[in-house]
């Protein structure tokens, strides 16, 4: 029994430093055997749930149990009822905050495909990619990559949860996208692997989870959003809407990020990840918007609201995240929880 699910290779993370009562409570749950526990602890309310460093890290780590092994934690913690109960409490907070953030607007008549196009056209998120393309310093570019490592080192995985929950055309469309995300049969072209290459080329540590202690809640929230959507069948509409907007808003910013790296003198080994996404996501966006999201809404009209919720929630959280980066940088501060020690950070 003990050998099952305890392979020595694969993803491992080390629990980051305790950030507050939520991470502390989680670590206590992860440490002691289930039988010794009665219930998830009652914890103080959090004011800004969507940007709280402690709460978002606790939620991120609850989800990490599904993606990776955690050093010193029994792999069975992934399905430990008490841990799941704790996660559910966090998710309730997260959901409530998102509902407050995302306006519940009725969709317009021409269907989900058209509505998604409109959301993208009307999006007035901060011009982060332009800034990176034309102005950012080397340390700012490195910070940007560290932020994104929270997702890109497991790129596409949160959306893959939805494959088993879809049928017919939408399922085929999602698999078509994910197959490309995972390298089209070539392990070295898996997008997460391309991101590792970028990190390495920039002198950053590409190890999965290496920068957890640097990631602020506002960044973790953007990834928690997809894990939350992806792990709940009831939210399959939302993860589909999330993916559609993600792909539809990807090609142009990625070209700019690549240009930013070229401006700073980096070569193809650093820009490959971004250049790949310019072309790949130009393919994916049409499939995701029409064959996946639009077709899912046509097949299951009751999911329309969720699809649009997923789309709007992504835009809202990404905008807040980008705003955070630009605000910190304009004040000459680090946008991470602590400055990137470039010497120590480099592999």
């Amino acid at each position, binding site marked *: 029994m003990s050998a099952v699910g305890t392979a020595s290779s694969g993803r491992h993370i080390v629990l980051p430093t305790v950030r507050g009562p939520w991470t502390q409570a989680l670590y206590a749950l992860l440490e002691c055997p289930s039988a010794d526990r009665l219930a998830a602890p009652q914890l103080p309310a959090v004011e800004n749930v969507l940007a709280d460093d402690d709460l978002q890290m606790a939620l991120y780590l609850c989800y990490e149990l599904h993606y990776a092994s955690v050093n010193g934690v029994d792999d069975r913690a992934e399905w430990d009822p008490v841990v799941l109960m704790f996660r559910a409490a966090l998710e309730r907070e997260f959901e409530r905050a998102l509902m407050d953030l995302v306006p519940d607007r009725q969709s317009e008549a021409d269907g989900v*495909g058209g509505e998604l196009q409109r959301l993208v056209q009307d999006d007035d998120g901060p011009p982060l990619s332009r800034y990176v393309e034309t102005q950012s310093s080397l340390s700012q570019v490195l910070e940007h990559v560290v932020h994104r490592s929270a997702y890109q080192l497991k790129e596409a995985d949160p959306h893959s949860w939805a494959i088993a929950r879809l049928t017919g055309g939408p399922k085929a469309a999602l698999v078509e996208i994910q197959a490309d995300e995972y390298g*089209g049969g070539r392990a070295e072209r898996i997008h997460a692997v391309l991101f590792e290459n970028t990190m390495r080329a920039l002198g950053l540590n590409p190890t999965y989870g290496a920068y957890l202690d640097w990631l602020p809640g506002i960044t973790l929230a953007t990834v928690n959003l997809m894990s939350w959507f992806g792990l709940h069948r009831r939210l399959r509409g939302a993860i589909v809407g999330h993916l559609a907007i993600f792909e539809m808003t990807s090609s142009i910013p990625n070209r700019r990020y690549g240009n930013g790296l070229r401006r700073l003198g980096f070569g193809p080994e650093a820009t490959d990840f971004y250049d790949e996404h310019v072309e790949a996501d130009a*393919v994916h966006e*049409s499939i995701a918007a029409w064959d996946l999201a639009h077709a899912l809404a046509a097949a299951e009209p009751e999911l329309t609201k969720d699809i649009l919720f997923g789309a709007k929630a992504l835009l809202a959280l990404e905008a807040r995240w980008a705003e955070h980066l630009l605000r910190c940088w304009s004040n000459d501060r680090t946008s991470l929880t602590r400055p990137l020690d470039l010497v120590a950070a480099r592999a």
Partner: protein
Amino acid sequence: MLSFKFAVGTFSTQIASRTHGGRAGPCWEFKATGRQKNSIPDPSDCLLTGSGIATGMSGEEVLIVPYQDGPYLVRGPVVVRDQAGGEIKLSRHPVALCRCGKSRIRPFCDGTHRLVHFAAPSSPETHRFEFKVVIGRGDRRAPTGAALARPCLSSEAVAPSDDPSVQSASDRAATLDEAGSSAVRRALARVRDRLGTQLETGPHLAREHNAMRSAEPLIGAAWLLLGERRSVTGDNDPQDVKAPVSHLIRGALELLVGAASDDESRMSALSRQLEAALALLERGPALP
């Protein structure tokens, strides 16, 4: 009242006065008559077997799907060569080929269609732009003839820009029913083709963007009027549409400049760009 009549529907706007939802102002509407051939097609209609494009293919078939406002997606065993016969390597399947013409990695798509607001339906376009433009005022209706049996664009009197009943720039921000506007959208795409890059590199705040969207129908209508008049008459300087075209463009200009009014440098930059656009529009589109 300015109205555009197409084979299958009618756009109309009343610029002078009309109570619409309790307030006077212009109103664009689209009335379908007969088959709705030029409504925006639903790409899901194009799905083979109704359950997704990919699943509708047999193994060796090549399938090309133009996506609404987006690229051509090509699935199946296909070889792409340049005109000298050299193979153009396809790094993925499916492959997206540029349809807007503005990609920087042609022949492949790089998402630029979104920046240039490329607009095209997924299903085949049916309009051949054989419009007849007839300009008249009041009851001086232009004669109709055999030419009008074809798809027809007609325009009656357009209020001059100093008309007191024209309330404000925002009132003129006619919201055009998108489902009926494909001809105008195509006309606009041609404007965008020329102006897209220019606008893209300019100031790009959300307000301006929204204003641009509001201005689009006005620019599109102006372009259509001018272009079709020229193609019908062969007249390079069609005086009889100058006034309405100018009126429409000025309306668009006011909207856009109005959106940027609290920043003087941005406003003047935008204003310069749009004056240039106006000059371009007044020269008219090239004849095919």
